[in-house]
């Protein structure tokens, strides 16, 4: 369980969520993205291809990160949500707030 951060050739910070994104670790994700923002990064992709489940705190962390990134003129996208994970965004109507791609490759293609 943890977050793996890589930087794509086109300058997108890709964060892969391994395991859960929940109340116990969402601060770690927020710290990671905020540090990158402070370092001048503006493009983010959070990939959930290896994620088990997300709780409402995890969803909330994504909402506030996305807000902050946008305020600084950047963009945060999501990818790799399986059917179950995607249903959480649909139920909470957060699918209207995020650009969601099926795979990280698709998300990066037109970033």
């Amino acid at each position: 369980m943890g977050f793996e951060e890589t930087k794509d050739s086109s300058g997108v910070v890709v964060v892969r969520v391994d395991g859960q994104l929940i109340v116990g670790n969402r601060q770690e994700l927020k710290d990671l993205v905020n540090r990158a923002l402070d370092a001048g990064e503006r493009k983010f992709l959070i990939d959930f291809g290896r994620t088990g489940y997300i709780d409402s705190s995890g969803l909330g962390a994504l909402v506030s990160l996305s807000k902050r990134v946008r305020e600084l003129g950047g963009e945060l996208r999501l990818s790799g949500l399986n059917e179950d994970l995607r249903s959480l965004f649909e139920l909470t109507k957060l699918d209207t707030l995020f650009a969601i791609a099926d795979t990280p490759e698709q998300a990066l293609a037109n970033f």
Partner: protein
Amino acid sequence: MTTAPLQLCVRRSQSAASAALATQVTLRMPSDVGCIEQAVSLVARHCLTGTAGCDRLRFRLQVAVAEALANAVIRGNREDPRKWVYVEAELLPDRIHVYVTDEGDGFDPAQVPEPVLPEQLFESCGRGLFLIRKLVDEVRFNEQGNSICMTLSRQ
């Protein structure tokens, strides 16, 4: 990552005399958000033993229990290390009940606003109970409001 102790105790029917009785699974958890993931995984494992092909059920159970535990730890017990969260699961032929009980004052769930209203959409919290209601088949609270019962149908 905190590794505070969890207490898990699986009780099964002892009364051979009477008809088959349900399995009850009991777990006591400290008021520590760092324990939630482990507790969810224990509860899911013990609730779904012997149930094949239940991925969707497992997912719904995991998220609902994670939410209820987070509320119990943070909202109910206010992360007071002297207070416990009690989890109890009852395994029935066609459904599972999971109870999550905290040692807080309780609340009135009818007063919680809908998080999908446009003005709530950008909030970073307030989606927990909503998700629970959407993911499980039935939600009941005790009258004090410090104990939630979530029912999931096996089919």
